[in-house]
């Protein structure tokens, strides 16, 4: 794997994991909004 490919993979994994975290944050607030 070249350095460029590794950087691309790192960026992609970072974005996916950050998106999951954001989804849990917004998702649980939305559960609160729907229930309240």
């Amino acid at each position, binding site marked *: 794997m070249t350095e460029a490919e*590794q950087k691309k993979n790192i960026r992609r*994994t970072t974005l996916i994991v950050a998106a999951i975290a954001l989804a*849990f*944050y*917004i998702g*649980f*607030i939305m559960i609160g909004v729907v*229930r*309240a």
Partner: protein
Amino acid sequence: MNTEVHAHDHHDDHDDHGPAKGVGRWLFSTNHKDIGTMYLIFSLTMFFIGGAMAMVIRSELAIPGLQFVHPEFFNQMTTMHALIMVFGAVMPAFVGLANWMIPMMIGAPDMALPRMNNWSFWILPVAFGILLSTLLMPGGSPAGGWTMYPPLVLQTGDSFPFLIFSVHLMGISSIMGAINIIVTVINMRAPEMSLLKMPMFVWTWLITAYLLIAVMPVLAGAVTMLLTDQFFGTSFFLAAGGGDPVMFQHIFWFFGHPEVYIMILPAFGVVSEIIPTFSRKKLFGHDSMVYAASCIAFLSFIVWAHHMFTVGMPLTGQLFFMFATMLIAVPTGVKIFNWVATMWRGAMTFETPMLFSLAFVFLFTIGGFSGLMLAVAPADVQYHDTYFVVAHFHYVLVPGSVFAIMAGAYYWLPKWTGYMYNETLGKVHFWASTIFVNLTFFPMHFLGLAGMPRRIPDYSTQFADFNTVASIGAIGFGLSQLLFVWVLLTSKQGEKATDRVWEGSHGLEWTVPSPAPYHTFETPPKYRIADEAFE
């Protein structure tokens, strides 16, 4: 996992880009070893601050009646002690160990996102500075318990927004740390290291990082809703406005139960590294350990309501959460079995890291068994909010998580400093800690079974004797930890450590010199399986 490198790749000739000089080295460092060191020092500092609060609590409870502090301050101490120990001591200690060891264990030059690594650390002192500053505010610090249940927590005075802000900061720090670990482990392993060849410490941390990604945002969401309820007129949890306070408990414990595993899975990883080394055998059932840890992580998401049996729920709900909780004993049992099987017929020696690991196996199991007792829904109605619960989670967290951190610190200290620590002092520290930790927390089981409620500054005289014993134990345990500081301070007075440090150690981290050079594995190491090394 049994591994060796073909060619040792020491990389100890990088004088041209070694550590920066002065305070800038620490403020702006992107080096995983520096950041790991900062995490560990921060964690130890918080351990003593949280410990001082525990001393206040135990001094007040040493005899019946009100002795030293006002009840309101006592409640502040229990709340702050828990927040500091969970988020400031145990979690950062494991992140520190991860920062130091994961890149070296997988043959990576550093963490994948080094600048974010610096941010994740430096957010923490700010978060805890804010939290500790509330002690000086009018009305004092938060006193509604670390669980922050509404409507009680909404009665907190001026410190409330500071509490919420600091919890958000702790969450951001943890999430950034978790992202870094996942990205590093997924993308930066040595070329021939497949996922199942990774050391157990790396595996347990990868699983922990996924747990963090899933649940820290949930805690952040819950406290954001608390904030809007208090200041922006919403009624998420306020019954008067159509909200539901019990919903907070569901959301909190959806975070809170996996949080328990966030604090214990890396401990499993540390112990899984140490026991094979001092048994001079490979870890029994490495792959089953991985599956067991994954199974525990999955189950941790579907058991949260066992913390809430007494708030009322349908019978089917009680049955589901009761049996799901009991199910966790199965993969946990697999782990205990594998550690014992690793030791079976091993050429065991009992250096300090091994002693702490053995105590971990025994004493964590006691915490696990009392957890099983609490999982029984009808029995939990009796135990709920008593000292039995306090005994249970302290057995899991002190001789569990904290002992594993101590074991890891002693195990890797020679690799960090380049010198062997004082083994005699280490053993004295171990025995003092083990005796006093049991003296502190074992009597709490009896107090709980006899009906003593938690979070009270005064109690009926029938509870006096066991409380006095627990307080003596707590003071002894606190003083014993000063020995650990002494061992650390004198750690460079010992013999020079070899590269491998321990006779039975295996893995990439033991192929670099001791102390580990500032930069390691800038070229990925060649790597092969060498099971015969253990035969």
